[in-house]
């Protein structure tokens, strides 16, 4: 039962992270507020199911759509007119807080304010979680490898040129935002129907950072990267409880170091391939020598550079 819980959490996290990967990894838009969309999706799904008798699957999907609508309402003012990405980032930063704020203060019997909603039926099963995860990841994989995905990547790499080649910046960004919001919304609903309890506090900035950290480690232009990172990170958090309180400190350092030394993340622009991994391990003994050579050469060049600089100053 416990393992099932971990797996379901992993599935939910994967869905959310993959959604964020489209927005931040592929389209290059920074958002630390996506827990807000998860929150909207969760509340939407749970309330629709409880009061309008909407069946499980539809509740999740409609919860996702609720997140989409909100995302478009707030996203549009910051994305049109080709405003700098900073506007969007600031907006998303505030958005997460505002969603929690509103829900915390809506003290009515339906949403229960800060106390959240309890006694949610356990409609999510291990299999439904895995199924949702597999289907949504498959969809995203196709999307990202399609024309739409390429347009998103073009915007991230050279927005000016992309636009001049005919890519509609606003529409593409809005689409990325909408899809990412949908994914987070569904992830929220999925988790809500498993944990049987949701409250505004469960969708905090910490959660947004969980997603971003996973994405940053996993890789910017990759699906399998963040997916594997999500599995890894969730399991780590489960089994190394002490890490839970210090994890934000670790995340902070992670962001700084990864951005400085390997901004593409571990996977970078590649996808995980079983063939290549097996090949890597087969060639490891020879590669060890090669890596050592590369390192000594690197050290020598560094020394040359510093000596050169010193000479220039004298």
């Amino acid at each position, binding site marked *: 039962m416990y393992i099932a819980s971990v797996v379901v959490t992993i599935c939910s996290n994967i869905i959310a992270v993959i959604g964020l990967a489209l927005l931040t990894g592929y389209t290059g838009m920074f958002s630390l507020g996506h827990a807000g969309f998860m929150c909207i999706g969760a509340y939407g799904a749970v309330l629709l199911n409880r009061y309008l008798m909407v069946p499980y699957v539809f509740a999740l999907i409609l919860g996702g759509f609720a997140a989409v609508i909100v995302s478009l309402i707030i996203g549009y003012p910051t994305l049109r007119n080709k405003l700098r990405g900073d506007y969007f980032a600031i907006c998303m930063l505030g958005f997460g807080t505002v969603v929690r704020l509103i829900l915390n203060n809506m003290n009515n019997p339906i949403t229960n304010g800060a106390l959240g909603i309890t006694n949610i039926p356990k409609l999510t099963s291990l299999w439904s979680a895995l199924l949702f995860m597999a289907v949504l990841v*498959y*969809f*995203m*994989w*196709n*999307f990202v490898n*399609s*024309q*739409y*995905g*390429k*347009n998103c*990547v*073009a915007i991230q*790499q*050279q927005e*000016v*040129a*992309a*636009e*001049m*080649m*005919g*890519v*509609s*910046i606003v529409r593409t960004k809005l*689409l990325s935002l909408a899809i990412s919001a949908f994914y987070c919304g569904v992830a929220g609903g999925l988790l809500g129907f498993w944990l049987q309890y949701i409250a505004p506090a469960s969708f905090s900035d910490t959660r947004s950072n969980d997603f971003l950290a996973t994405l940053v480690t996993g890789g910017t*232009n990759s699906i399998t990267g963040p997916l594997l990172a999500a599995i890894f990170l969730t399991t780590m958090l489960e089994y190394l409880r002490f890490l839970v309180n210090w994890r934000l400190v670790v995340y902070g350092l992670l962001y700084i170091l990864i951005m400085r030394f390997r901004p593409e993340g571990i996977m970078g*622009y590649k996808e995980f391939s079983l063939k290549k991994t097996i090949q890597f391990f087969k060639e490891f003994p020879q590669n060890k020598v090669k890596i050592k050579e590369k390192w000594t050469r690197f050290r020598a060049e560094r020394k040359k550079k510093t000596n050169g600089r010193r000479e220039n100053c004298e």
Partner: protein
Amino acid sequence: MNNSDNALKVDDLVIRFGGLCAIDNVSMHINKGEFVGLIGPNGAGKTTFFNSITGNIIPTEGTITYRGESLIKKSPDKISHMGISRTFQNIRIFPKMTVLENVCLPIHSKPTYNFFSAMLGLPSVKKEDKRIQEKALDYLHRLGIEEYKDHQAGALAYGLQRRLEIARALAADLSLLLLDEPAAGMNNDECNDLVELLKGIHRDFNLSIMLIEHHIDVVLKLCSRIYVLNLGKLLAEGSPQEIQSNPDVIRAYLGERRKRNE
């Protein structure tokens, strides 16, 4: 001048940035199928001029029309779909995409299937993507960089990147091509190759072309008409011979060029 001959028509264009007047009452036109040059010293406003055509800058006054339709206040992507494409002074290829993907982009910048089908991964989607790749390969072949199709664009040599820029601009369904210093950084041999290439493209693709260049020989060999811009004002207009012998031009630009030891 018959209206239907005019591809691009610019009238009394004024572009001011705060106190600076970058373009001062400039009027130009390009006829269908012409190869027109735009030269002038650095800072004359040539790239600004291009940027106003492609919609990246909104002019302060004046009109720009293409085939009768006004370009002002249209977004660059809409202008691109009207048939205008360009290369950039600083190379703006997509560095982390492959060469092939770079050239495919203009073809599918307006996606040719809806995003639902994309997510479902329907076979029709895969077929469409294949079709676009074939089309893109044609352009790569034309520019002689087909063998690099799977290389990362950012890793290519400078000269090849320039060619990729041109291939990418061609792949957009275009009728007017704006080239911004395509020969920058090239030596004489490379310039000659470029001239042959551009001549061929002009002929085979039936394009109207406007070329900004500092390599005067390239301009003189390719263009049937040349505009000279200096400090935002139109200094002269004419055939290559007329421009070469124009004393104002020589003083303002070609003279400067001799000092620069090209």
